[in-house]
């Protein structure tokens, strides 16, 4: 069984972004970039399925400029076998990403496609579901457990009310939540080995997809800042302030 994992290059989760002075976007110059944490979990899950002998090949794909090869190499160091970059300088929206991924799915014919539930830059939470609609595949979103069976997969999902389990026919899509697994660190030998693993570059043209954007970014602002309030000395003062000053008790 082949697994395809889609990974995105995003700002490192520890970095607090700043808005550009002209409000055109956030400032990503000289900011540390990394594999989207949910994508790291996706790669880990695929690699574990391979280690358990359930999968035999793990292919990672990323869409973006040349720089995304860095994250593809990271994924290869974590245990993926082969990488594909869909090279584009434009910033494709989620629908365009889903169309490009559909193109890759048609070529690679994976039985399972694993994505992150959410990219921590756009906070969109939609690409996996869109790919599901475009390919007709079922989806197990926000997964905290993936159980492969013959011809199907059971996915336990983190939902607002608790946990829900669904059974999906293969091929299927899974998007990862935080509790699915704890990703490993890439070892130095594996980082070296990853440099020699195959990384193919393709283009939207070759996949027959036009990268478009129907949603324009007009402005990016800093959120209303909260200012630090006061420190209270003890519980009595806290209760008094909440009653008489904030009037929330």
């Amino acid at each position, binding site marked *: 069984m082949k697994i395809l994992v889609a990974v995105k290059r995003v700002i490192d989760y520890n970095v607090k*972004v700043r*808005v550009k002075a002209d409000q055109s976007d*956030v400032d990503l110059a000289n900011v540390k970039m990394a594999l989207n944490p*949910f994508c790291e979990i996706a790669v880990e899950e695929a690699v574990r399925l391979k280690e358990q002998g359930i999968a035999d090949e793990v292919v990672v794909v990323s869409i973006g400029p040349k720089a995304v090869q860095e994250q593809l190499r990271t994924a290869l160091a974590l245990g993926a076998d082969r990488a594909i970059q869909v090279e584009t300088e434009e910033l494709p*929206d*989620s*629908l365009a990403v*889903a169309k490009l991924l559909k193109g890759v799915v048609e070529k690679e014919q994976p039985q399972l496609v694993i994505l992150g*539930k959410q990219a*921590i*830059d756009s*906070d969109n*939470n*939609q690409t996996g*579901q869109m790919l*599901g*609609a*475009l390919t*007709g*595949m*079922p989806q197990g*979103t*926000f997964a905290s457990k993936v159980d492969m069976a013959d011809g199907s997969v059971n996915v336990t999902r*983190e*939902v*607002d*009310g*608790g*946990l*829900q389990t*669904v*059974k*999906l*026919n293969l091929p299927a899509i899974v998007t990862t*939540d*935080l*509790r699915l697994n704890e990703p490993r660190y890439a070892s130095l030998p594996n980082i070296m080995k990853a440099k020699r693993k195959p990384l193919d570059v393709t283009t939207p043209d070759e996949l027959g997809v036009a990268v478009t954007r*129907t*949603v*324009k*970014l*007009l*402005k990016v*602002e800093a*959120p209303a800042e909260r200012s*630090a*309030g*006061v*420190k*209270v000395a*003890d*519980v*009595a003062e*806290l*209760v008094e*302030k*909440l009653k008489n000053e*904030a009037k*929330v*008790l």
Partner: protein
Amino acid sequence: MSILVIAEHDNKELSPATLKTLAAAQAIGGDIDVLVAGEGCQAVAEAAAKAAGVSKVRVADNAAYGHFLAENLGSLVAELGKAYSHILAAATTTGKNFMPRTAALLDVAQISDIIAVESADTFKRPIYAGNAIATVQSEDAIKVITVRATAFDAVAADGGNASIEAVEQVISNDVAAFVGEELAQSERPDLTAARVVISGGRGMQNGENFQLLEKVADKLGAAVGASRAAVDAGFVPNDMQVGQTGKIVAPELYIAVGISGAIQHLAGMKDSKVIVAINKDEEAPIFQVADYGLVADLFDVLPELEQQL
């Protein structure tokens, strides 16, 4: 303009998030229809018909929609949604699950998690864990939108008198099936709708100690939340996680106990009206957003707080 709002419900009750989504729809303006898709959900349809500003309630009542699975619900909403200029649903785990499928089937973008309506085609939404607010404009003929419920004031639950009409169309789901669920049982108010929320973090040390929080919550009629660290450590279940990738809350009073205040946690609670932080580390970033900070050991503070309330 004509807007289709997809009701959020559990087949028995209309969720308050729907009334907030209706508020976003009213801000866009135009005729508003509500779709109630589910199984045995007539009571929900009746409740939706009473909500302020609704023209028509369309009910797709069929076993095929009983568990709101995205594969066929997304298709149904795309089918019905073709006739509208906007399709809105709350950004809950149900809305987030099926709405992007609807958007892709209609070949349009989805605008996720809006917090404000600027005009019929322009919306504000948080990005980068709420560290920036984007204003975006959609050129799509049909705008598919999920709504951050905490950012909108609910429309009145009563006073409306919409007509109710059945949707005959049944789309089956041949690729996915519901197996089971483990739903949290709680007497406490729902996290996302509570007036007061008290959350615990890694500082709570274990699940048993959450009882200290629950005792305070009982006094305040509060919901209990948690940081990711507390959920990952297994102290409490996942549905209690507040944050960028958990639940978004904006109560009148938020009390953070033994939580450091990482940006991912702040993203889920910093729109609360009043924030209290209890932490023994006076350098903890949570104090930068707290209206009232108490630097102390939570194991001393919580029993005292319970007594003094």
